[in-house]
Structure formats: C-alpha cells, structure tokens
C-alpha cells in the first residue's frame, strides 16, 4: 500500500505511532529515534512522507475560513497591528531593484512611520544576494535582520554548486537569514531525497544564518503535497518554512498556512525542535495579516506569536497596517498619500 495507512479527521495529531508506514516493505525504527533514519534513502523518505495523514481539503478550507471570521477590535486590534508590523519581512525582489530603493526600504524598516516613533521596527528586510551588502550598510546598528533569497530564486532551476555558491555569496555579504527555494520539479517527480540533500547542503552553506525553506505551495497543487513538503523541509534542517516566492499565484492562502502551522506544531511534538512559519505573497491588508495571527494562535499556539517564529513576507501590507494604526490613534481615516510607496 503506497499511500500509507492513516487518513485521519480534520485535526491531525501526528503521534509517533503514525511514523511507521503500515504495510510498507521498508523498516523504519520508530522506537528510539523515530526520524533519524527517515532520510536513509529515497524509499524510506517516500514511505515516511506518504505515510503522513492525508489532509482533509474541505475541512482545512472550512477551518481556515471559520478562523478568518474572528472579529478583532479596539485594543486587541491595536496590539495585533503592532505585532504584525514587528513580524513583517519587508521585501523587494524585482529585477529593477536599485541600491537606492534598498536603502529607502531599509530606512522604512527601521522606522516604518517617521511621524510616530511608537511604531515598532519590522523583523527583517528581504533582498536579492547582490544587494545584501547595501542593506547591511543601511541597517548598521539597527536590530532589523537581513534576509536574502538564494538558490536560483525564484525557480530554483540550477545545479547544486550554483545554489551553494549563491548562498555563500549572501552569507559572506552579511545575510542573517537565507530564503531558499526547493526544487519543485524534483519534489513533484517524487525525488524527495534530492530535495532533502539540497536543503541539507544549503543549510550547511548557510552556517550561522537561519534557513527559510520556500515550498512554493502554489506549484505543489495539493494540500497533501504541502504537508509532505513541510515535513521534508523540517527534516532536512530548515529553521523556517515559507509558503511562496511571491512570484506565483495563489501564494499564502489561509488553508495552506494552516496546514504548515499544523506541521510545525506536530514536528515540535515529535522531535522537540521548533520551526518557524512565514506566509509570503498575497497578504495585502491588515485584515489578511490579522487573520494570519488568528490562525497562528489557534493552530500552533501563542508560542509562535513572535517575530522569531512567525513572519509575514510582504511589502504592501505594511502601508495598510500603518494606515490602520494611524486610524486607531488619530480617529480619522488615513490616506496612502502620506506613506512611502514601497
């Protein structure tokens, strides 16, 4: 039986017993170190990933939609907005990025609203590797982290040597975090071990830098694949799992984020290692951002409600957060003319 044995209900708690793919020829030790040998070969990895409980698609959509109806108002809204601002990875990933644009974005990252000093700084800026040095100079002395995409972003279609060199370039330039893309082609073809080894190699090349693994869920098609890719990335050593590059639609939809949050929660239960989540792309309004925070709180728990464990990859959402914040503090509706464009 290839597809594993477990098809659980809406809320899956993946206990250790589910790690043994029932009826599969491959032996996986589940007693002492349940996940140590999972990556021994493509067969064991495949058996493990396909042994994960299937996702109830209708249930996941419904639960994400239901959590999206929560009404967050007044003081709760104010603190949610501040938390969301502090979780933003302010991103510019365009072919037209200039050093000037990166510097302007860094200034905004440190002080998102120059007219209101009580606004927290964002978590990080996210740029291409060749602009890391520029960001590093602009952010000198500030607590804002520098994230760099790497590994032939956004398609990931290159050799491992090129990807490792790309990563090393970003790390050498001073990146604190590396956002890598997985090889979706290999993943969809079932070559899980290739994806696994690539993530492990990039993790090694990243050194001290945190590794965020971009799954590009828009290209993975099914929720089952999202769950498998999440586990694969976590097993291979990713410190964060990230939904999307922002170049493919759909990007960070609430159900996909929900499934990834379930995965990190279950991974913590199973292994004791905590992994962060970063939805990226498609989050445009304060409402979207607050929905994400509700999802985090209700799925993974409030242990993830911190910029160390949850990030929002977006750029346009920051202005909307600032406008909503201004509306709450001044009592009048804010206008986009009074905020920077990027």
């Amino acid at each position: 039986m290839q597809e594993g044995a477990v098809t659980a209900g809406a809320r899956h708690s993946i206990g250790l017993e589910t790690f043994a793919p029932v009826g599969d020829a491959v032996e996986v030790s589940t007693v002492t170190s349940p996940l140590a040998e999972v990556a021994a070969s493509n067969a064991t990895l495949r058996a493990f990933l396909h042994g994960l409980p299937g996702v109830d698609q209708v249930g996941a959509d419904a639960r994400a939609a239901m959590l999206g109806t929560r009404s967050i108002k007044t003081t709760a809204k104010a603190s949610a907005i501040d938390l969301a601002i502090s979780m933003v990875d302010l991103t510019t990933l365009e072919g037209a990025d200039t050093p000037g644009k990166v510097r302007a974005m860094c200034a905004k990252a440190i002080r998102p609203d120059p007219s209101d000093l009580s606004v927290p700084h964002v978590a990080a800026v996210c740029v291409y590797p060749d602009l890391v040095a520029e960001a590093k100079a602009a952010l000198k002395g500030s607590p804002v982290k520098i994230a760099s995409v790497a590994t032939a972003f956004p398609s990931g279609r290159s050799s491992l040597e090129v990807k490792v060199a790309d990563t090393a370039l970003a790390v050498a330039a001073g990146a604190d975090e590396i956002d890598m893309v997985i090889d979706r082609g290999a993943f969809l073809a079932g070559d899980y071990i290739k994806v696994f080894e690539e993530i492990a190699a990039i993790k090694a090349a990243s050194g001290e830098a945190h590794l965020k693994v971009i799954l590009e869920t828009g290209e993975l098609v099914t929720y089952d694949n999202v769950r498998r890719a999440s586990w694969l990335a976590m097993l291979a050593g990713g410190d964060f799992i990230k939904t999307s590059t922002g170049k493919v639609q759909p990007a960070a939809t609430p159900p996909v984020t929900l499934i990834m949050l379930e995965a990190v929660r279950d991974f913590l239960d199973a292994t004791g290692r905590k992994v962060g989540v970063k939805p990226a792309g498609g989050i445009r309004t304060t409402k979207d951002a607050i929905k994400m925070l509700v999802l985090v709180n209700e799925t993974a728990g409030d242990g993830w409600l911190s910029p160390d464990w949850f990030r929002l990859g977006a750029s346009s959402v920051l202005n909307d957060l600032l406008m909503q914040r201004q509306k709450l503090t001044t009592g009048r509706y804010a206008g986009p003319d009074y905020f920077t464009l990027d």
Partner: protein
Amino acid sequence: MTERLAVRKTYKLFIGGAFPRSESGRSYVVTSSKGDFLANASRASRKDARDAVSAARKAFPGWSGATAYNRGQILYRIAEMLEGRRAQFAAEVAEADGVSGKKAGELVDLAVDRLVWYAGWSDKISAVRGAANPVAGPYFNLSTPEPTGVVAVVAPAAAPLLGLISVIAPVIVTGNTCVVVASERAPLPAITLAEVLATSDLPGGVINILTGSAEEIAPWLAGHMDVNGIDLTGASPELAQKCEEMAADNLKRVLRPKTADWSADPGTGRMTAFLETKTVWHPIGT
C-alpha cells in the same frame, strides 16, 4: 381572484457602481412634503463613507486619465438617460418638494440642461483656466488645470434633483471623482439618479451616493486623509464649521456653503474650486 402584490423598490446606496445596502443595516423613513410615507432609505454609516472613498480613489486614475472629450460625452449620456426618465423624476420631485407636476417637470428639464451645459465645459475649461505664461528665459511655460482627486460633496437639502446635479456635474466634469451625501430630507431622486448613472457608461466609483445624515457622515469625510476636497453646500453653518476645521489637517480644498439660486447661471466657480494648476517648464531649442 387574488390581487397582485406590487413590487416595491428598495432604495439602497450607490458605491463603486453597485447598489449595496448600508453596512450598518440601518434605514430611515422618507416622507413626502405632506408627511406621507414614501419609502425606507438606507442610513449610511462611516464605514459606507470609507468604502465609498476607496471606490472613488480607485476610479480616479481612469476617470482623470480619460480624455476631456470622453468625459463630456458621458455627461451628455447621463443627460440623455435622465431625459428618458423625465416622468419618474418629475413625480419624485413633486412628492418631495410639494410642487405641482408642471413645476416639477420644469425642474427636471433644468437639471437635464444643467448636465448638458457642464458636459460642454469638459474640453473648454483648460482653455479658460490654463495659460502659456511669458517667462524671461528660453522656456515654454505652460499652466494647465488638473483635477484635485476625490471630492466629498454635501448635497443641498433643497432642490433634491436640480441641486444635486448642480453640485455633482462640475466636480466630475473636470476629472475628479466624488462621494455625495444626498439630501437627508429627500434622498429618493438621488437614488433614482444613481440608476441613471449606472446605465450611462459612467465608470463605477466616479460618483458614489450615500443617503442618511450629513451630520453623521460629513465629518468622517472631512477628516479623511484620502479625500482631497469637500463641497459643503448642503451643510448647516455649525456642521460646515466643524467640517472646515477637520478638513484643515490635510489642506483639503473647501467650498463653503452659500445660498444659491439653482435656476440661475452657475458660472465656472464650482468647477474651478476643485482644480489645481500644474505648471511645466519646457526648454526651447533642445
């Protein structure tokens, strides 16, 4: 034999080219000048005003970027559609203002003529307000009037159709988009006008019509940082002062209320109140 039930019209708001109910779900009773029940109209809330401003802002690039000729054509089209519904408007105006059918018909005619008059201004206002300025240097120096952006309009309480047309048309003909708070006392012609607008090739969001209390909605529009101008024609002196103070924060263009004879020649004042002048210097000989 059962008697047929009449199908009554629900009077709703007009936001972004659609007819939503008020977000708040509120409504209020509209009566004729004699005090008879006419209909329940939506009582718009501040959130409806907010949505209307976003719709108007969204429509602004397209509308201000359209050619003046095209804007004029669309205003003329509104006049055509209005003329086609003359009887319906005349009946509504007669009920709201307690005037005779003949007088109401004349008022509708005046409103149609007013639209046509403003439609003609679309490609002429820049010739009147723009200039080629003489400068002491090798430059062409050209000033041209441009629309200011989103304009909030408090429509006059009297003259529910003619007054409404007379405040909306000059705002949009130059390329602004607007959010109108219709006369609280007589909102029905405004909603029927929205049906005319929806069938006139006018892009959704260029005119947004809210019914309800100006006292409640106008201050939110006056304080809104994404509104560039406010016409306080229909505001009471107290409300006008309050709105003027709130409008100062982002330096909105404010048109103060003054008593107007709507049947008189309107002049260009209402158009120029919401225009700003852009001047360009173009070097000669390069």
